[in-house]
Structure formats: C-alpha cells, structure tokens
C-alpha cells in the first residue's frame, strides 16, 4: 500500500500488485476514468525520466501501470520504493502531448455499423459522427496489436456495449467505437467493436522507418472526409506521399 502524503489528489490511493518476478503493477483505480488515466501516464512519464537500472519497459494502461523489470538487475521491493517517491509528486497542470489530425471517412462501406449503432444510441448517424469528431480524443492505452490505440473518453452517449457477435475479419484502418472508447484497427483482425469509419492512414506499417504512428498520451482529432477525398488520400498514402498532420502541444498549453 502506498501512502500519499498529499490528500488533495482526488483519487483512490495507488496500490502495488504483484505480477511475478519480472513485472509489477501500480494500480490507480479499477474502472475507466479520465483523471485516473492521466495520473497513470503522468507517473509513467516521471518514471521514464528516472531511467532506473533494470527497468525493461513501462506500460501505461487505462487504470494501471505495468513496470517490466529484469530480476537479475533490480528487485520489486527496490522499484516500489522508487515509484512511491514519484507517486508523491504533485501533478500540476497538464502534460504536453502530440496532437494528430486524422482524416476519417464515415460513409458507406467505410462505416458498416454506423446506422445500427446510431439506433442503439438513439442518435442520428450524423450526430454520432459529430460526437466522434467534436474534440480531440486522448490515447488512454496501447494494446491488442502493435500500434493499436484505445482512445477516449467519448461523450456519455457512446457508452454502448461491444457487438453481440464479434467479426472474424475487421478491415484494416477501421475506426470503431464501444464503451465510450474508440480504436483504430491497425491491420485486418478479428474484433467486436462497432465500425463507424475508416482512415486512409496506416497506424502500423512494418515497412516504414517508424512502423508505429502513435503512443499513449497522444491525442487524435478525427476529421470527417468524403469517400471521394478518402480515396484520393489513400492513393497518396500508398504512394508514400502523405505525411500525417501532427502538432506538439507544450505542457499547460491548449490546442
């Protein structure tokens, strides 16, 4: 159990959970919560800055942090002491982030589930698109597949369960929604989320110098484009002539 000296942080006290002898979990909460998620990523960034010996990787997830370590170099008990120090660190203002503008086609074959999920949400399809594109969404976590981001939290209307029947094949670059989150299927794969659009941008391309486009903490502002524009952009991407628009937002600044 961690003792947070400053009680002004409005959240449950983080706890350490064991995950064998090569990883350690710092759990900030059990449910999906934007504030908890930011705290996770803040502590992950602070821990990265420390460059402690023996840490192999730091994986922020929606409500906890997994610290992978080499037990031949360090020990769980040592890491817990070091992390406890960071947990006391006051989280002031907003961390900086990268802001991506990502074109999405929300029409026709690109959006096979838009009408049905709009019905589930008691909204018109155009209102679903508006909700999805209104504000930049934060990458809460990376997982499932290389370069695969989970973003949120979308407006409360988007609190819909996953599809009853998961699809065996979700087309690559599909944009999906469920449980107030949105994801981008980096490659064709099985999936249970509602498909409401498709982007021409590759979020994972093993042939690219930097195969993975985004990281946890980045934000994505989805930009609706027509199917005709989508096709033009897609050709540009395939020809290697499209550079995604990204902006560095400094700490405390807003986009």
């Amino acid at each position, binding site marked *: 159990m961690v003792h947070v000296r400053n009680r002004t942080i409005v959240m449950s006290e983080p706890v350490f959970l064991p995950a064998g002898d090569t990883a350690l979990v710092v759990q900030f909460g059990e449910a999906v919560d934007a504030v908890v998620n930011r705290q996770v990523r803040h502590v992950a960034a602070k821990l990265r800055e420390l460059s402690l010996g023996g840490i192999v990787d730091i994986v*922020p997830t929606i409500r906890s942090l997994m610290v992978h370590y080499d037990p031949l170099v360090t020990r769980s008990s040592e890491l817990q002491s070091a992390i406890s120090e960071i947990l006391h660190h006051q989280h002031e203002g907003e961390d900086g982030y990268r802001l991506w503008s990502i074109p999405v086609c929300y029409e026709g074959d690109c959006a096979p589930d838009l009408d049905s999920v709009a019905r589930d949400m008691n909204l018109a399809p155009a209102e679903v698109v508006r909700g999805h594109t209104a504000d930049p969404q934060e990458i809460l976590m990376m997982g499932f597949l290389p370069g695969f981001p989970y973003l949120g939290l979308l407006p409360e209307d988007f609190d819909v369960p996953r599809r009853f029947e998961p699809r065996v094949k979700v087309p690559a670059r599909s944009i999906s929604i469920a449980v107030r989150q949105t994801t981008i299927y980096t490659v064709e794969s099985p999936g249970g989320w509602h498909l409401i659009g498709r982007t021409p941008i590759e979020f994972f391309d093993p042939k690219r110098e930097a195969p993975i486009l985004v990281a946890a903490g980045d934000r994505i502002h989805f930009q609706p484009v027509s199917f005709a524009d989508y096709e033009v952009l897609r050709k540009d991407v395939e020809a290697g002539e499209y550079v995604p628009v990204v902006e560095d937002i400094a700490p405390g600044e807003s986009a």
Partner: protein
Amino acid sequence: MSGLRVIQAGFAPTLQDFGRPAYQNRGVPVSGALDPVSLRIGNALVGNDGGTAAIEFRMIGPVLEVIAESVRVALVGTRAGIVVEAGERVELPSYQSVTLKRGHRLSVNPVTDSGAAYLCVEGGFDLPAAFDSLSTYGRSQIGGFQGRALKDGDELPLCLNEVPERGELRLENPVYLDAGGPVRVVFGPQRDYFTDESAAAFLTNEYKISREADRMGMRLEGPALEHARGYNITSDGIVTGAIQVPGNGLPIILLADHQTTGGYPKIGTVISADIPRLGRLKPGDTLSFTEISVAEAEEARREQEKEIKRLISSLSPAAAWLDEAALYRENLISGVVHNEQTG
C-alpha cells in the same frame, strides 16, 4: 546466395531470439524463444552470443541443405538426435556442435520429449531486425524470415559463409531438461477476483495442457476456477507467465507471443525461472502449481542464472563427426580382425 535452404520446413518453424521486451508500451508483443535457456546453451555451443536468433520448432524439425561453404550448428531443447546426410547418413546427439559443408543436409529425429527445440547456427542469420529483434511474430508479420514461419524452398541468409575450423563442443548432460516438481507461481495481480476455495483448488489439483497450446499461450484442462467478482476487468498489462482465467474458469498461461494488455482477471504468474520449462511442455503433459513470494521468485531466477552459467562453462570438447565416422570404420575393421584372432 549462401546460407541454408529449407528442403522441408516441418511443423511451422520460426526464428526466435530473446524477443523485443521494450516495445510493449506501443502494443508490440515480446515474442522470443519459448525456452530461452536452451537458446543460450545452443548458442554457446556454436560460439554465439546467447541471444542470437535460432530456428525454433516443435515435433518435426526442418530438413536443411547447406548452401554456404560451411556452417556450424547445434540442436538443443531435446534429446532427439540430429541426422547428417553427407554421402553417408550419420546420426549425432543433440547438445553438440556439428560442422557441415556445402551440399550436406541435416534433419532432426522426431521431437517427442519437448515442445520447443532449437537449431542454433554459428554467426546467426543475416536478416533485418524489427524493433531490435529477429523474433518472428507472425500475427503482425514482423521479424524472422519475411515475418512468417519457414516454408519449403526458403533460402535463409547467414552472417558467415564459412565458419572457422576449430574443435566442436558438447554439453555432457543437459540436466535442466529434467526439471520437475510443481510449477512455481506468484499469486496476483487479480487473486482477489477468485474465491479462496478456487485459489486452494488451483494449488492442489493437477492440470493437463490442452491441444490449444501455441506460442501465444497454453489452455489448461482441469477443475474450473470460480470467479468471486466476475470475469471482466478494465484491461491492464500482461506479463509472460500470467495465468488468465476467462469466463469458463479454465486457466490459460500466456507465453512469448501474448498480447501486451488484456481484460481477463489473472489469478497468478508463473515465475520467470519456470517459463523455459513451460516452453518445453507439450499438449497432454500434466502440471501442478505451488505458491511462492515475489522475493523468492527473484531469488530462484538468480539461482537459475548461476546454474546456466555453470552449464555453459562446463562445455567440453567433442569429436568432429567426420573423424568419428572414420574412426568407427577403423574400429569395425580392427574389431573384426580382433575377433578372428581370438575366436
């Protein structure tokens, strides 16, 4: 082109090294050898760094033809023998380096004693790394040879076209292959999602590895575990060895190719010192579990490291197989003469 030609791939062999542990934060699975201990010993036998990529396979190994001037290989992870065809057919034991010349073929006897065997090659493979590793992760088509398992006809480029002449090495007795007893587990991170009765049952019952076992994980058959707080959690991180328990209550131990995050509760984690042993298990094998603390698990790993280093420093000279064959013929002749004299 010089290297190794795959005449028959066998059962979907892949190239594996120590994997890519530093990219889990971007959703990239670690992958890597299911049995990193055997990989290290095999690499030591051919003079490589421990983490040099090797061919990992199970059950039926590949048939390879040498299309370089010479290669030095070693088979590890099994007590099955290696078969060399060089005009004559010679069977040699595993855990021994063997030098082959251009045109020689090598194959492996059926591997029935292990779920992961390795063919290590001196100098390693001349292939591009993906995220700092040559490990194949087929699901995303990264690493290894064109991001996939080997197929008939593939030509694998090697870093060395010719290996230096020197004595061969062997490991006299790979005792570590016989490691037995319960698999050691640290409870958590979600031990509290299970009833106390279930946690106790997990430690007292025997489980069998089902047919659904691959590089991603092994499903176990045995008494179902009872969830105390449902079987969905908000996704969190996964470490190799994590024992996740989905709705049907049957545990799945996650191995090298596991996803980096997941939403099923994990009752415990197999300790890192016992992961290589899990990697050598195969469908139908049985196992039981015992609980230890994190500190004990870390200590066990340190002890294992000493043992691996001891094994590697105990490698001893082995006779070169060509000499051995010649010697055998000589013995046979002299033996016959001897028999005639005494008979």
